[in-house]
């Protein structure tokens, strides 16, 4: 008898579990209490409705840490998901967060010193890796917002600590210990808001983050940088020479038949492969440029892994090929 399927159901969202539990409790109340509760509900709904009408122009967003679902507040709090040592070794995950709010049309992210990865788990939007400036359309379905994750990657800090034997966190330059992610939010009703997540690295290797309102200053040149290109973009710069344009077209030609669903299937095959090794996959992304250089139906993915809880650098590479039966097989793996 297969318990694995019931085991997998254990990974559904907390919100669904709580909702199902609380719904039952309400049904058990007696009629008199129900009527009282009902009356109270109507009054509450009326008051909320009145408040909503009077405050309808206010739009707010909140930021949450992805793994722990902990709200990032205006008070600087330790990010419990990861730490870094003087040798540049990361334990756990750097900050990964998502934004929740009402009627968000789009958010433009700008990272001052380090880099950002953006992943859309619903696979409807362009994704970004090692980017500093990009814009994301959020759309009408606010249930999707939780699945739009932004990872902050302190690559420069990690490199400085790991490349330099004598480097210590306490002696690092300010731009390697502090960073800011500015979010320019546009709501459906045309209102805008600017928020920022401030990150700092304390001497003991822990990261602190806080989320607050932000006012863009004239000296914030990083916000005015142009947007980075997404990972799966079909963008072609018309100002580039014809050789470069034709090489981009060839790159698109070699991978154009690989749909998002096929990429997802290949990713699952890669994750299954790593589940039998000593590595734990943190994230995996399709390497379009790398794949274009391969012959035949081989495709390359970049994988970030951890070994015994320690994030491994640099990222690993895995190549998969689809056989005639449509099954993805690993043909090569390594650095």
């Amino acid at each position, binding site marked *: *008898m*297969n*318990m*694995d*399927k*019931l*085991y*997998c*159901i*254990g*990974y*559904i*969202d*907390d*919100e*669904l*579990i*709580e*909702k*199902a*539990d609380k*719904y*039952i409790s309400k*049904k*058990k109340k007696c009629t008199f209490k129900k009527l009282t509760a009902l009356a109270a509900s109507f009054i509450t709904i009326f008051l909320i409705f009145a408040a909503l009408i009077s405050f309808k122009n206010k739009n707010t967003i909140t930021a949450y840490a992805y793994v*722990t*679902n*902990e709200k990032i507040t205006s008070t600087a709090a330790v990010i*419990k*998901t990861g730490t870094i040592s003087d040798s540049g070794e990361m334990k756990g995950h750097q900050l990964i967060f998502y934004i929740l709010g009402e009627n968000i049309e789009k958010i433009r992210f700008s990272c001052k010193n380090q880099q950002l990865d953006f992943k859309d*788990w*619903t696979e409807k939007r362009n994704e970004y890796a090692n980017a500093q400036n990009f814009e994301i359309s959020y759309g009408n379905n606010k*249930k999707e917002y939780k*699945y739009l994750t932004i990872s902050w990657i302190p690559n420069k800090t990690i490199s400085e600590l790991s490349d330099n034997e004598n480097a210590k966190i306490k002696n690092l330059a300010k731009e390697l210990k502090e960073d800011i992610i500015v979010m320019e939010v546009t709501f459906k009703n045309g209102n805008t808001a600017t928020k920022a997540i401030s990150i700092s690295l304390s001497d003991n290797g822990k990261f602190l983050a806080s989320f607050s309102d932000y006012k863009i200053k004239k000296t914030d040149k990083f916000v005015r940088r142009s947007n980075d290109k997404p990972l799966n973009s079909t963008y072609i710069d018309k100002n580039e020479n014809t050789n470069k344009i034709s090489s981009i077209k060839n790159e698109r030609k070699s991978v154009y038949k690989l749909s998002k*669903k096929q990429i*997802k*299937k290949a990713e*699952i095959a890669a*994750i*299954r492969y790593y*589940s*039998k090794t000593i590595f*734990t*996959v943190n994230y995996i992304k399709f390497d379009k440029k790398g794949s274009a250089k391969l012959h035949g139906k081989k495709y390359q993915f970049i994988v970030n892994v951890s070994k015994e809880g320690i994030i491994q650098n640099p990222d690993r590479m895995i190549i998969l090929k689809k056989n005639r039966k449509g099954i993805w097989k690993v043909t090569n793996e390594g650095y």
Partner: protein
Amino acid sequence: MEDEKIVQLYFNRDENAIKYTADKYSSKLCNISYKIIRDTCTVQECENDTYMETWKRIPPSNPKDYFFAFLARIIRTISIDRYRKETSLKRNCNIVELSKELDNCIPAIDSVESEIEAKLLGEMVSRFLYTLSDEKQIMFVRRYFYMESIAEIAKHLSITESKVKTSLFRVRGKLKIYLEKEEFL
């Protein structure tokens, strides 16, 4: 005591946290475990293991918004693991029935140690459930997470058993189509 305050006690490493957790949620958690284990002594052991695991996980976890879901997930996992390991426990007809129902719509995972795949599948099922009405979501979660019987679900929702059966049958069919579309099957 509010969940937020109980979680804060865990953060402060105050052992009263476990006492307050047990006072508030013991019966609900034992209920979940009993549906899997069907043995009172083992259920009590699972309950104690749950409090121990909760103590270990908070911090770094901070489930102040979904504390009961956090506990329910832990005791459910512990109970399923105990059920697997202890062949002396009575074979649970309800579990057999639930597994058979899910056979057609959820794929087998190659290895239980492939936690990433199980999490991916759990996320996909969540996304699917959000496309359904509240009543259907609750039916599915009560049936396959809380492992309630059809009769219990019908009583709690004040609807007929045949409506529960029909709705679940249709939801499983839609889930199968959804997972096929997402190429997870």
